């Protein structure tokens, strides 16, 4: 059976798809056979972020309904050998996702030799989001250091602890990780943004990483390249660290302390 990881948050726009794309890419680059599934039926975007939007023929709902098989629907990533994307349907209704259907797809991915399946959850707490987390073994809860995002993260943690299969069957609970994104060390230092420690203290979930706020994320999505591929980018390095920590490697936190820009930088600008 493949290890199923849900990337979730409750709130929209916090970086779930960016995170799903980068973590799945990171795992594939480490040699693990990885599939990333878009659960946002009706509003798919993972295909755009991964840069495979023009190669979508079949989708998750087609596979669930038996209109296509997994081999036909999985799109091989253009950068990584071991990475496959299963897009969401753009036209169907969210109710097309059934628990049995999703379970069947996940089982089949396991039979196909996948090591990891990343489930990119839609925002909200409705059917799509619940389906994405139902079969999770681990959860990466993405949160911005901002009040509504933290509150929604707490809500989704409650749902993980009550509606996931592991919770329903009384098995070992879903392993939770907190990922703080769009972090601005300067604003934290100025006392105008929650620190990652604050967020962690509030949510009481082990921290897997902090992704700095950066213009690079837009640059990456513009091109359809997962942010982890970017050269000389803090965001890429931060995501590589997240993948390493996920694989139980020890990595100190980076990009969380504010460094005052030097005189030259202040005079001439620069990133």
């Amino acid at each position: 059976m493949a290890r199923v990881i849900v990337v979730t948050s409750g709130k929209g726009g916090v970086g779930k798809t960016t995170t799903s794309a980068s973590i799945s890419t990171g795992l594939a680059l480490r040699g693990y056979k990885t599939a990333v599934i878009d659960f946002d039926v009706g509003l798919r975007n993972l295909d755009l972020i991964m840069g495979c939007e023009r190669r979508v023929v079949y989708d998750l709902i087609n596979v669930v309904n038996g209109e296509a098989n997994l081999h036909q629907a999985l799109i091989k990533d253009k950068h990584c050998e071991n990475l496959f994307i299963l897009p969401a349907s753009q036209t169907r209704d969210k109710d097309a996702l059934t628990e049995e259907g999703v379970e069947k797809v996940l089982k089949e991915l396991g039979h196909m030799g996948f090591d990891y399946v990343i489930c990119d959850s839609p925002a909200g707490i409705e059917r799509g989001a619940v389906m994405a987390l139902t079969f999770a073994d681990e959860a990466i809860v993405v949160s911005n250091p901002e009040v509504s995002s933290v509150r929604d993260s707490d809500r989704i943690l409650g749902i993980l602890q009550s509606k996931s299969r592991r919770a329903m069957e009384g098995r070992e609970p879903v392993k939770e990780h907190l990922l703080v994104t769009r972090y601005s060390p300067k604003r934290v230092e100025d006392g105008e943004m929650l620190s990652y420690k604050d967020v962690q203290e509030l949510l009481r979930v082990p921290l897997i990483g902090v992704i700095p706020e950066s213009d690079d994320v837009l640059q990456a999505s513009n091109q359809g390249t997962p942010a982890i591929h970017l050269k000389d980018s803090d965001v890429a390095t931060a995501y590589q660290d997240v993948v390493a920590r996920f694989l139980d490697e020890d990595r100190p936190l980076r990009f969380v302390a504010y460094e005052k820009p030097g005189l030259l930088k202040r005079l001439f600008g620069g990133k």
Partner: protein
Amino acid sequence: MSLLSYFFGTKQKTASVAKERLSLIIAHERGTNRAPDFLPELQRELIAVISKYVNVGPDDIKVQLEKQDNCEILEVNITLPEQPQR
């Protein structure tokens, strides 16, 4: 620089306000959303039993389940009426 320090000097430190508000609302919502199904029933039965012996109303008994790491604490708070018993 003087312009910069002017701005920095007057900026409010709002992160601590955010943290305080969040810790309150999260604690509250955890209490209501994650409570197991039996809590309301337990509360009703406790009221029924205790009111047999002491004059307490439904609002005088509070049942809360708190979670700390791996440990769950069931807290039952009963406010007894104020008049002396003897």
